[in-house]
């Protein structure tokens, strides 16, 4: 009896969490399907037929499809670079714990604490002088630079937990440091790489604070700044903004549904000992 009650309680708790997670999507859906003149509650679906003009506005005026492509490109390239550079940087920092390396590691990790907006003007000036404003590579450089410290921290922490005996065995077998790194250490980084990919790609996909300044042209704007162009201080089009947000969720949702097996596998890979 007690066990059954416990199960019900767990089910109820999960149901509440699901509802809480889905409420914003529900409100976005009802808002996107109504014209501006429909003043009914945002909790209700439109009674006088579905209004799809908001989706049309999001695509034609807001260029949301282009923004999704831009976000995908910047996210994939940045995440790949972050994984590669993060692992390469972390290896010597994890394995050679000299005083210099400890200082470098602390400095890199300390960068996580710097709020990106506090360096906005110098960062913008530098990027402008390099011709990187409104370019994909400019945005990628910024994403890599801001996310790299976290990646280095995660990789270094994971590498320290790996038994050094495996690398010593490789050395005894005649492997060079580079061979040891690429053929012995990197294959063992699968679990932490999954974590880094998930953490950094989600941050980059949703990034707004810096992108809104660096990517101003509609040709290169990513999703978050594009949606925000429907919200200005003098007047907003929340219906179109909601429609744009919903459209931009679709590719992520599809990617997750197709790849969820790998996502879950990647997340639990580290637990298998």
């Amino acid at each position, binding site marked *: 009896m007690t066990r059954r009650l416990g199960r019900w309680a767990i089910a109820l708790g999960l149901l509440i969490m699901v509802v809480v997670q889905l409420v914003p999507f529900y409100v976005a859906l009802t808002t996107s399907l109504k014209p501006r003149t429909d003043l009914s509650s945002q909790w209700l679906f439109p009674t006088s037929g579905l209004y799809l003009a908001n989706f049309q506005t999001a695509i034609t005026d807001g260029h949301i499809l282009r923004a999704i492509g831009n976000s995908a490109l910047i996210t994939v390239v940045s995440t790949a670079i972050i994984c590669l550079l993060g692992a390469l940087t972390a290896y010597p920092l994890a394995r050679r714990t000299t005083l210099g390396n400890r200082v470098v590691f602390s400095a890199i990790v300390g960068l996580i604490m710097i709020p990106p907006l506090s360096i906005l003007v110098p960062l913008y000036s530098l990027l402008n002088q390099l011709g990187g404003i409104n370019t994909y590579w400019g945005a990628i450089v910024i994403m890599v630079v801001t996310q790299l410290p976290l990646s280095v921290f995660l990789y270094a922490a994971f590498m320290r937990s790996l038994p050094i005996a495996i690398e010593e065995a490789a050395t005894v077998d005649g492997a060079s440091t580079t061979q040891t790194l690429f053929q012995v250490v990197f294959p063992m980084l699968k679990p932490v790489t999954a974590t880094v990919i998930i953490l950094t790609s989600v941050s980059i996909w949703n990034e707004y604070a810096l992108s809104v300044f660096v990517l101003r042209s509609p040709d290169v704007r990513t999703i978050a700044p594009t949606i925000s162009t429907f919200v200005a201080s*003098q007047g*907003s089009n929340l219906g179109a903004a909601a429609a744009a947000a919903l459209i931009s969720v679709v590719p992520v949702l599809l990617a997750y549904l197709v790849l969820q097996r790998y996502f879950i596998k990647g997340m639990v890979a580290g637990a298998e000992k």
Partner: protein
Amino acid sequence: MKSLWKAAAALTAIGLVLTGCSAGGTGGSGGAAKLEFQTGLATSDPILKTLTTMTQKFESTHKDVSINLVPMTNTYEADMKVRLASSDIPDIWATHGWSLLRYSDFLEPLNKRSWAKNFNPALAPAMENKSGEFFALPADTDVAGIVYNKKVLADAGIDPATLTTWDDFAAAAAKLKTAGVTPISASGKDSWFAGNIADFIASGAVNKSEKAGLIKGDFASGGYTKVLDLVQSWQKAGYFNADFSSATTDDLTRSLAQGKTAFIFVQNYVVASALGFVPDAELGYFPIPSANGKPYLVGGEGHAYGVSKTSKHKDQALEYIDFLAQPDNLGKLASAIGGIPGLTNAKSDLGVLQASYEKFVKPGTFPLDPYFDRVYLPNGMWDTMVTTTSGVVTGQSGVTESVGQVKKQFGTLYGQ
């Protein structure tokens, strides 16, 4: 695993090649001059639609010019500050009330253009410097009072023309509250709105000698105390909307259009937004009651567009501005804004605000005061005005401490 790393490396290489080949910007290569016009408008703003149509017409007759109308978010002001500080200046940009005081060092003077003779003289105090130079094409002349819902006031038996003192206004607010209407709606979420309330009242609450003192750097607290005393009295009487902290400007205009709110202290452009919710809403504006005399209107520069003096395509940008200044085009722009044209030879359709214009503006009986903060307070005071007024509206801070904060900030910024 090895293949994963190879795939990642290949992907990165492809991405870098792709991204290396792409570049935005406003370069002038390839023959056509590409101009960047920062509009400061939301993507589906009706003013942006009008500008887009006009720009397409201009481009069809100027094949060597391409103009990129860039929509912006509510970070527009911050974005412009960053760009000016970084010398990455757009060719043309919306000056949002600051063509003279903030942007004139970066803008080309326009007083020598052929259309300059039609510059509305009412804009001169706000837009012209001592040498008679002005730096932006005024699409409209901003004339603002207290925006109200005509039906709500008529139902309560209130004639806005009779609200000439703040006591009259408070009596009307009490009547409206009894009738179940929110007398005044304001937004604490939009981080500018509350400042508007103080700004509107201050023009009439701060007397002449105090104003003269402010220009010299002396902050006499008396006038500003009157402003916040008034706000506090409305707060204590429960005249403000209950959702002040969470409401956006859109929520206020919607509430006004629906007849749930009677008054809002904001510029007339919000009427277009309100009519988007309720197309047949009856709205108007009336002069602001004065604490020291006759009611008045406030105003100055509204929507205006300036050309960067360092633009690589200055001539083309000026040609485009001349095109916008043609009476027919300017009239259409002013109509989209719902304002009085900034040039005297253009005519606009004021829509529902025509009646208020005929009654309160056209006869010229009510003085048009410039925005208080732009003339009497140093640059940077706006944020303090917003936070202190918000504090009083929410009841989180008292009048004395808020005025003290304003005075302290005035001293700091004036010194700079």
